[in-house]
């Protein structure tokens, strides 16, 4: 999931009786699956939590361009290069749809960017791992976009209208991402022995970080409980992780690759796989900034923001000058 550990109000979920009439009306709309729109009344906590969640999601799309952008110039064929370019361009679009959705809640785009650059707002832990080989690009599309889709599909039904609509657009585009990744993996897994080893190595390195994308178990989290009552979170982290594992293991088998988990076993009773949890200490370290490439990622974003400042200012000055000239001529 692209938004991890989003904190809500921290208080327990109120019952309808405990709410004042305005809040009750709001909650009843949510319960009845009526979308909340930007100018409708909403609890402060709902708004704040959404800004955090959508902002984190948007930042993830943008920072997520970096690990893949890393391979555009070194893609093995012109076709692969065009495909990867299109994929990375889509992610820029996803970031934009989400920033726009967040802006309807009253936070500005620049404000969000600055909070990302100062480290105040987070992005998904997954993008703090490097892409070392071409097979990593396959693994990212297959596993990382695969995990993102798992999370994003239910969010198309989220209670906040602009967020739900952004998700619909995003989901339409994501399946190409996962398929192009799997396509790379198929080619590598069925290629030379060296290519097969590269594919296996990519799966080894991306398996647990992908499982971390869903966040630690939130079965007993007050934040999640509140977010679920507001329908800005639809499933628990464990539910989504289970679904992801169940979907992915047969795909790995088809590739002839081994999921790096010796405890992995089909559990007939629950109708899903038993699997090992990722190392949550590592997860919290990465969130705190100690992942393999946290610094590089933020540095790259800061550089892009700073280096682009004169372009943003220049284009705006030009537009203002032309507008003034037009007014003078009228």
């Amino acid at each position, binding site marked *: 999931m692209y938004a991890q550990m989003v904190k809500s109000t921290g208080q327990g979920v109120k019952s309808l009786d405990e709410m004042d009439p305005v809040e009750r009306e709001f909650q009843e709309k949510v319960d009845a699956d009526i979308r909340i729109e930007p100018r409708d009344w909403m609890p402060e906590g709902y708004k704040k939590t959404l800004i955090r969640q959508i902002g984190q999601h948007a930042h993830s799309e943008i920072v997520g361009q970096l690990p893949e952008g890393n391979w555009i110039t070194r893609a093995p064929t012109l076709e692969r290069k065009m495909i990867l370019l299109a994929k990375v361009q889509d992610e820029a679009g996803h970031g934009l749809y989400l920033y*726009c959705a967040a802006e309807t809640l009253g936070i500005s*785009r620049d404000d969000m960017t600055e909070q990302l650059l100062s480290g105040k707002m987070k992005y998904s832990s997954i993008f703090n791992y490097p892409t070392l080989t071409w097979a990593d690009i396959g693994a990212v599309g297959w596993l990382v976009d695969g995990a993102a889709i798992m999370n994003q599909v239910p969010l198309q039904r989220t209670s906040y209208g602009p967020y739900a609509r952004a998700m619909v657009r995003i989901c339409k585009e994501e399946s190409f991402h996962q398929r192009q990744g799997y396509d790379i993996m198929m080619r590598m897994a069925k290629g030379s022995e060296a290519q097969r080893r590269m594919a296996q190595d990519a799966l080894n390195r991306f398996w647990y970080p992908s499982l971390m994308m869903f966040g630690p178990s939130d079965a007993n989290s007050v934040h999640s409980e509140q977010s679920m009552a507001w329908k800005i979170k639809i499933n628990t982290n464990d539910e989504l992780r289970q679904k992801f594992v169940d979907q992915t293991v047969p795909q790995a088998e088809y590739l002839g690759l081994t999921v790096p988990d010796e405890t992995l076993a089909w559990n007939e009773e629950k109708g899903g796989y038993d699997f090992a949890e990722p190392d949550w200490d590592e997860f919290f370290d990465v969130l705190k900034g100690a992942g393999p490439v946290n610094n590089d990622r933020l540095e790259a974003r800061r550089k892009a923001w700073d280096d682009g*400042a004169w372009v943003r200012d220049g*284009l*705006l000055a*030009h*537009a203002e000058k032309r507008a003034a000239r037009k007014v003078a001529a009228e």
Partner: protein
Amino acid sequence: MSKEWPLWEIFIRGQHGLSHRHVGSLHAPDAETAVKNARDVYTRRNEGVSIWVVEAKHITATAPGDKGPIFEPSESKIYRHPTFYDIPDEIGHM
């Protein structure tokens, strides 16, 4: 601190001759750039044949609180719908 580019609302006419439909928004310094960016962001897969951009501040909207007074009057006017009228079967399609 630099000033932020204004926000533009984007409307796209799809392939099938329908009206322009709101698809989202973006920031751009001026209308021409907004159109170019809208092309890149919202029509990457043949979604449109025409683009409108409108600066968000120029849009006037109904307030959520006015929903009742504005829209309720039409609710009771069921005679505006064809199903209000019973036409005998022998008349055929009408």
